[in-house]
Each structure stands twice: as C-alpha cells, then as structure tokens.
C-alpha cells in the first residue's frame, strides 16, 4: 500500500501495463548515451571533483570525498608502535574478509601455503561485505551462442573503452573456470533439470550470461567460500582492520592491525600482503545514499596510496540505477538489476516508458535522473524524495505467477516487511551509490603497481583495484572480479611468499607521506583511514565528552 498521492500514479502504471508488455523503447545510440550522461550523470558535474595534490597519482581528478581521505593525516606515526614486537608472523596476510579476501585465502592454501601461515584480518565479521549483498548474478560466457570474446567486448564497451585490456582478458577467460570451481564447492546455482545453467541478461550484456542463485547470489557464493575457509582452518581475526601497511625499505611486509574493541594494535609481519578491502560506498559521494555495507570506507585505497600505489579510473563512480526510493527505512538499498532482467520496466509518474530497461548502469541511471529532474516526471514521496516506478508485476505476467517469490525472494521479503506486495504493486526506485569503478592499479597477476612498476610484496583483488571495469562496471562482473582477481592475488602472493625475505619493519613511508602533505601545503585536521562512517545523531554528538 502506498500513500494516496502515490496510489494515483500506481493506477496510471496499471492502465498502461497491457500496452507496454508488447513494446520496448529502443536502446540508445552512442550519441544519445553521451548526451544523457553529460547532462545528468552525477560524475559529469565539475564542482564535485578535484585534482589530487600529493602522491604517485598527483594531478588525477577524483571525487572530493576521495581527495579528502587521500589528503588526510595518517592515523599512526612511527613513534606510536613498537615494530620489534611481532604479534603475527605469516607467509600471506590478507586484509579484508569479504569475497576477494576469502577467495585469496583459499587459493594461497591451494598453492601450498599452510593454513596457519595465512591470516585474514578484517574490520567487521568474516563475510560482512558488499560481496554478500550482491543479488543479481555473476557473468560467465559458458553457453554455445556466447564466448569469452563477446564477454570481452560487452565489458570493454560498457566500461567506455577505458578498461585495462589485459585485466578484461583475465576476467572473461577465467569466468567459466570460476563457476565450475563454485559448482564443485557446492554453490547452488539456478539450473534447469538437465543441469544447464539458467542465465539471463544484465544491463549491457549482448548474451544471456548472468548466472544466479535466486536473488541471493552473492550470499550463496560467499557463505560457501567462508565455510570452506572455516573447514580448512585458516585463521581470521575480526573487528581488527589494518590501519597502515608495513614496509622494509624494499617491499611491503605486512600491516599494523587495530583491534577496534580493545583499541590495541598488533604488528603483523608477512612475506606477502593482499589488499581485499573493497570500495568507498560509505563515503557517500555527493551525499548519495548507498547500497554498500557499513565498512566500505576505502581504507585499502588510502593505505596503498601511502605505500606508493598508483590509482586509476577514480574519476568515475557507479550509481546503481535502482536503489529503493520508498519506504524511507530502506532508501538507497539495492533493488537488483535482475528485476529488470526478468522484465520489469522503468515507468514514470504518468505510467509511461522512458528508457530501454537494460542500458549499461550509468546510462540507465542518468535516464532515471533525467526523468525525475530534467522532465519533472518523477513520483514524489511524502519525504520529498523523487523516484520512478519499476513495474514489478510485469514479471509475474511474463514468467508466470510465483516467479517473484521464487526468483526474487530477497526483494519480495524487503518490501513485504513494509506492506508493499511487489507481485501486485510496482516499486519506487532512484539511483544509489553502488560501486567504485576504479581503484589501485594492478597487473594481470594482481600485483599492485607503483611509479616504477610492481610494488613488491603487495597484491590486490576485488573492488579496491581498478582497471577491470574502466569507467563503468557491468552487472555481474563484480562477483566475477573478486573471484578472478582474489584467486590471482592468492596464487601470486603464495608464490612470492615462498621466496621472499623480509628485512627490518618500518613505517618510514608513512612519515614520508606526512612530509609530502606538508610540502604540498596541506594543513588539515582530517585523518584516514576512516574505518567506520559516523552515523551518530547530531544531538547526541553535540554533547559527547572525550574524557576517557
């Protein structure tokens, strides 16, 4: 049930449904895409970005929120920690316990590193991550009419031809292998009776290659991978994020960890270190709500930058076209692209179509913003939020009754809690901050790159790294990314660890970074990595005393 004003618009959506079932707007041409992006995509506003003043990628234009955490004081100094007292001494240290970190741990183990010589350090619980929230699916070109080359072209064009080609090649060529690995681990992909994978389209795909496990795809994959890590006995320390990398003058050599509950630090020495810290959704770029988990504060990006890692494609931010816009309690939460994949059309306040439902994400998002703010054809909620309808009842008409409960159980449950039955009523959506398209630059072996090539001892996989998706990621390529590059990072780290020798641990690079900030004339109170966003109520904070 919707408030009265919104119900009026729902009637119009119902009235036009029959006619809309049989026709779709045409996909946009290259020129049309460019026009709507330029005018309406949040990334194309100039005043929301600035050039970095310090570090390897100085001069690169990034969102202000990213520049703020890069141009911040590190939270620790050399003098704060005793590096001669080693708490954890391992072959492979993995920072981050989401998808990429979990996959990296498994492949470091398969590559011959003993479980006790691996350590996963993570900020929240093992598995609390964007990986577990991904709903819609994972791409892999494993059907007869499809090929890794077609997948390559889809991903490269979707990324606006800015992707690093070697990384796209690795992504698409490893994809079927990854799905097969999952199948062997017992992941329950949606299949037909003869075992054929059920695959559908995602935005920007030219073949149906989206594999899913209902709309809990990310959760199903991650809980299986996590179970495997637990069975093998790879140690995980939770609520203990890394706060700086350690170096020995020549290479990365572990990290300083921080137990957020007891507020003590640990020194973790490692022959190889993997960053699997995810992206920046909780920085709320341009004040957008986000689909991201609580810990997505781009800590890894900051730590790697302190250690000399290069960034790329950080100017582009992914806004998912369909975040929930009503009810208020769930604003910004992800409405999976699978809803459109199954046939729900975006429709405006008058019940009219205005965009092909499966454009690449940035184009689709821009078209929705245009409808709400350029053409004033959005639906206004009681709190003043604007959105467009996603006509979910169409799914049941096209695929039969029961499809939503079966294939979109999470979505159905989300709205049912607030008395909206998406089988019968459309749902209201607006773009939401979703993904860090760019990140730390890596090569195809997941080695992190600095000014002079590879930064020895440092590897990265998942959302923290950039280049795979260029300026815009396609649906289903992020679950794939964390598997492909998490795996490659795990293998590369294990191989490196077998021959690496670590010298004296140091935080000199952090002191150097502080000097760089000073030389660039940056005087600020800001500190990073942030670790957690600040959501406490203003009134409560205004009375807070810092006395113990």
């Amino acid at each position, binding site marked *: 049930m919707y408030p009265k004003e919104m119900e009026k618009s729902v009637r119009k959506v119902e009235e036009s449904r029959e006619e809309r079932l049989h026709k779709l707007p045409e996909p946009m041409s290259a020129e049309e895409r460019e026009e709507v992006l330029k005018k309406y995509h949040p990334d194309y506003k100039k005043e929301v970005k600035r050039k970095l003043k310090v570090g390897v990628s100085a001069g690169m234009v990034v969102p202000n929120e990213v520049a703020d955490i890069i141009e911040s004081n590190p939270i620790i100094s050399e003098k704060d920690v005793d590096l001669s007292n080693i708490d954890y001494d391992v072959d492979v240290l993995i920072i981050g316990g989401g998808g990429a970190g979990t996959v990296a741990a498994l492949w470091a183990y398969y590559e011959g590193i003993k479980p006790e010589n691996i350590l996963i350090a993570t900020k929240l619980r093992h598995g*609390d991550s964007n990986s577990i929230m991904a709903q819609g699916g994972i791409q892999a*070109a*494993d*059907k007869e009419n499809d090929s890794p080359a077609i997948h390559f072209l889809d991903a490269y064009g979707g990324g606006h031809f800015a992707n690093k080609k070697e990384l796209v090649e690795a992504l698409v060529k490893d994809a079927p292998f990854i799905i097969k690995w999952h*199948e*062997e681990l017992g992941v329950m992909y949606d299949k037909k009776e003869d075992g054929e994978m059920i695959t559908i389209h995602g935005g920007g795909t030219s073949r149906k290659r989206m594999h899913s496990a209902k709309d809990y795809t990310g959760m*199903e994959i991650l809980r299986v991978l996590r179970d495997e890590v637990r069975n093998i006995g790879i140690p995980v320390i939770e609520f203990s994020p890394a706060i700086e990398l350690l170096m020995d003058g020549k290479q990365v050599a572990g990290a300083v960890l921080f137990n957020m509950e007891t507020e003590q630090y640990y020194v973790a020495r490692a022959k190889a270190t993997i960053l699997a810290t995810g992206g920046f959704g909780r920085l709320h770029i341009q004040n957008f709500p986000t689909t991201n988990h609580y810990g997505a504060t781009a800590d890894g990006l900051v730590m790697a930058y302190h250690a000399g890692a290069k960034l790329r494609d950080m100017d582009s931010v992914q806004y998912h076209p369909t975040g929930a816009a009503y009810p208020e309690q769930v604003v910004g939460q992800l409405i999976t692209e699978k809803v459109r994949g199954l046939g729900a059309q975006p429709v405006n306040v008058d019940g009219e179509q205005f965009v092909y439902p499966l454009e690449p994400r940035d184009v689709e998002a821009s078209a929705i913003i245009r409808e709400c703010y350029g053409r004033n054809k959005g639906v206004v909620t009681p709190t003043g939020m604007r959105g467009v309808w996603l006509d979910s009842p169409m799914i049941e008409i096209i695929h039969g009754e029961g499809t939503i409960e079966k294939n979109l159980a*999470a979505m159905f449950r989300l709205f049912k809690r607030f008395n909206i039955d998406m089988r019968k009523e459309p749902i209201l959506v607006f773009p939401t901050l979703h993904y860090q398209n760019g990140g730390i630059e890596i090569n195809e072996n997941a080695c992190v790159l600095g000014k002079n090539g590879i930064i020895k001892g440092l590897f990265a996989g998942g959302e923290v790294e950039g280049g795979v998706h260029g300026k815009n990621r396609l649906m289903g390529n992020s679950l794939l990314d964390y598997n492909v590059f998490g795996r490659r990072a795990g293998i590369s780290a294990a191989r490196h660890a077998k021959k690496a020798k670590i010298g004296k641990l140091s935080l000199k690079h952090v002191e150097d970074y502080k000097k760089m900030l000073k030389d660039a004339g940056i005087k600020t109170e800001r500190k990073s990595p942030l670790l957690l966003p600040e959501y406490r*109520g203003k009134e409560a904070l205004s009375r807070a005393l810092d006395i113990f």
Partner: protein
Amino acid sequence: MKMVRVYIMGKEYKVPEGLTIMKAMEYAGYRYIRGSGCRAGFCGACATVYRKEGDYKLYADLACQTTVEDGMYLAQLPFVPANKATYSLKKLNADDKVLVEHYPELARCVSCNTCTKACPQELEVMDYVQASLRGDFEKAAHLSFDCIQCGLCAIRCPAEIPQYHVAQLARRIYGRYVAPKALHLEKRVEEIKQGKFDKEIERLKKMSKEEIKKAYYARDIEEEAPEED
C-alpha cells in the same frame, strides 16, 4: 517530528518514529562496531532480540530491517558461539546419515518450532531440521536457501541444534552431489584451456579505439524470449 520511547539495553531514549532499530540506536548516540554489517538484510550481523511494553514475548528480528515502535526493549546479539562441524566436502560420504553424523544433536529436536518462530527470514526452520534428520538434502537445501546465518534459531533452540550450520552442509552436499552438473560449463572450460578463443580476444585487444567502438555498437543482442522454467 513525532518521537517514540525505546529502551536500549534497558536505558530509555526518545527517537524519531519510523527509524529502523539500527538507525534509532545510532540516533541515540550508539556507534556500532559489532552488530552492523550490510545494513540491508543480507549478512545477519544485526540479529536483535526485543520485547514490547506490556507483552511477555521475546521477539527476534534484524535491526536494519525492523522499524522501532513505542515502548520497545532492545538488545542485540554481538556473537553466536554455535558449534560448526568441520569436514572436507570432497571426502565425505554423502549418504543420508552424513548430517546426523556431523551434527548428532539433530536427533535432539523436539519439534517445538521455536526456531521457525525466531527466524527473521520467516523460513520453515523446523521443517528443514526434520528433513536434515531424514537425510533429505534437497528439501533441507531448498527450505533453508534464504538463510542469512544470523544464528537466532540456534540461540533459541532448547535442543541446542546449530540449525544454520547444519543447513550450510546440507546445501553444499546438494550443490555438489545431488544437483545435476552443468555439462556446457565443463565443455567451455576445456575449450578455453585449449586456447579456442585466444585469437579472437587477441584481435579485439589489437583493435584501435575506433575499430572496437564500431564492433561494440554493431554487436547483435540475444533476443529477450522468456525461457525460464
């Protein structure tokens, strides 16, 4: 702004109506370290137990998906220390006894249905426990599929069964041993290994930006015919 009273671990606060339990606690000044994960109902980090004023019942739900009501008494579960069996999926004998062998406590189920009532996902937990007891992987796997592993079932269970861990094993056995294999997947992995697509990808990699743009906009798009069963 209309305010409601909530009791956070016994202390009274006034918070705006309409907030989720999670946002209400933050509004009151609590900063989560534990108890907040995906904030969207997928990770199970914010398992919450609450009681309503004048009601003796203890309710269980997710803090990020539940709206506060006036007079709620709130507490969150920081951790669930339930037993998880360890196993090698590859080596285990996937017969109908395997779940009970790994979790003998399954046999203690008294069919009281408390687990089902505690489940914030409204799953038929007791039914999948019974299916597990019978070695019916398929039923256990499908009934438990939407489980977010918050642990509320295990915390409430008088028989001390870690339902959500049992279900994880049942699903993995189903996925590996019972569900039919995707043969086209195996074939494609083999083709890639043999380098079948290398030439075509190499060709794409060597194209100029103009050439590849042209190829991209000229690609044919598979028809959107419904084919799901």
